[in-house]
């Protein structure tokens, strides 16, 4: 009985929903502040000390705005899409090994499960765009699926090269295989670069924020959502950012491993995980700052001409060495 209660607290409070929610808002603050400092300006400043409560203030403000549903849209699907998006993002983040080598949900083969869930999230994006029945949303949804054709294969190939190096497709075993040396210092470095770039495409940030291009199609597939639904979409996007940063830390930087004092393991593992995922997040923000936005046909041509051959070369290298 006590175990069920402890497991319940673990899922809801720490390191479950509330912890992940607050951590993802903190990561959005770091992203915005770092992006602003790279551009020689200030960023969020007035909500809380140094603007740290700004993402929470944005979320609460959106919850109180008016909720408008277009007349021609399918009401049931239109209301369900933000909820599905948000819950899928939370679901996949529960797999990350934050406080110990196992995540809260952990089973054999969960790397394949995570990749499948990411594809389903892209399909949810497509359905949300199509069900809005607005011209801009239709174009945004179609661009999201075209972009999925571009980045998904290099993404999976880079994950497969990590799986081959550690001889397993379970996250906890991949973390354990990095006990001696982290994968970023081995010949897996090409996989790291491809993971960063395709992760940026997964999260739809510049240079790949084509489905949501503000200048051309006025917010793309998200254009008809307002009020609570928009709040859930943005929050889900933040949690997905935490997921990609955490996945990068798990697969390439050794997850929560580091020098420990026995007894304080949970706390130290969490701190190491947070530091490593912030490092990946800062690299993602730098990529966001130094490039212009690409066109959709250019994304597909770059992806098939450069990324896929590079990841196949990486697979050959890893197969020969390990």
């Amino acid at each position, binding site marked *: 009985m006590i175990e069920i209660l402890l497991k319940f607290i673990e899922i809801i409070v720490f390191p479950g929903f509330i912890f992940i929610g607050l951590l993802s808002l903190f990561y959005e603050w770091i992203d915005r502040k770092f992006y602003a400092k790279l551009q020689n*300006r200030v960023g969020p400043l*007035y909500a809380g000390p140094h603007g740290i409560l700004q993402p929470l203030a944005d979320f609460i403000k959106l919850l109180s705005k008016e909720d408008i549903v277009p007349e021609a849209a399918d009401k049931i699907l239109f209301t369900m899409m933000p909820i599905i998006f948000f819950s899928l993002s939370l679901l996949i983040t529960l797999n990350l090994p934050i406080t110990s080598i196992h995540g809260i949900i952990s089973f054999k083969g969960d790397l394949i499960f995570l990749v499948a869930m990411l594809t389903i999230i892209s399909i949810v994006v497509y359905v949300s765009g199509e069900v809005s029945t607005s011209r801009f949303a239709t174009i945004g949804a179609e661009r999201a699926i075209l972009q999925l054709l571009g980045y998904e294969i290099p993404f999976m190939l880079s994950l497969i090269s990590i799986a081959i190096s550690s001889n397993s497709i379970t996250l906890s075993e991949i973390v354990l295989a990095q006990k001696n040396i982290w994968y970023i210092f081995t010949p897996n470095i090409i996989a790291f670069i491809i993971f960063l770039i395709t992760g940026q495409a997964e999260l739809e940030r510049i240079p790949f924020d084509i489905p949501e291009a503000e200048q051309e199609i006025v917010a793309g597939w998200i254009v008809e959502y307002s009020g609570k639904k928009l709040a859930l979409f943005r929050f889900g996007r933040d949690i997905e950012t935490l997921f990609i940063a955490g996945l990068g830390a798990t697969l390439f930087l050794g997850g929560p491993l580091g020098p420990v004092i026995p007894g304080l393991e949970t706390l130290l593992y969490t701190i190491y995980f947070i530091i490593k995922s912030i490092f990946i997040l800062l690299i993602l923000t730098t990529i966001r700052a*130094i490039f212009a936005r690409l066109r959709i046909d250019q994304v597909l041509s770059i992806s098939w001409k450069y990324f896929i051959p590079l990841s196949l070369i990486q697979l050959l290298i890893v197969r020969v060495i390990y």
Partner: protein
Amino acid sequence: MKKPGVMVGEVYRNLFRKRATILYPFKEKDKVHLPDGYRGRIEFYRDKCIGCQICSRVCPVKAINIIEDERGKRPVFMIYRCIYCEQCAESCPTKAIKLTKVFENIAFEKEKLFVR
């Protein structure tokens, strides 16, 4: 194929530079410096005015009214209409009108927007 990411060096150097934003008006109100000759709010010297009414005729937006007081005719300026063009100061033959550096010209009472 050129090397991508040309801006990386510049962008990281900007991390350590001081910010380019002035935090006006909540924190750094005194860091705004205006040069001499800035065209702000009108200031009027009554003793130099001779009542020729040139300023009222030259103003492009009709922001100057002429009234009569104990020493003769004199203008009244409506700041809420003024476009800060300085034509009245330039055309005044006795230089009785001057433009100062005050640029915060909003008020809750209409009386503050007249220069008498």
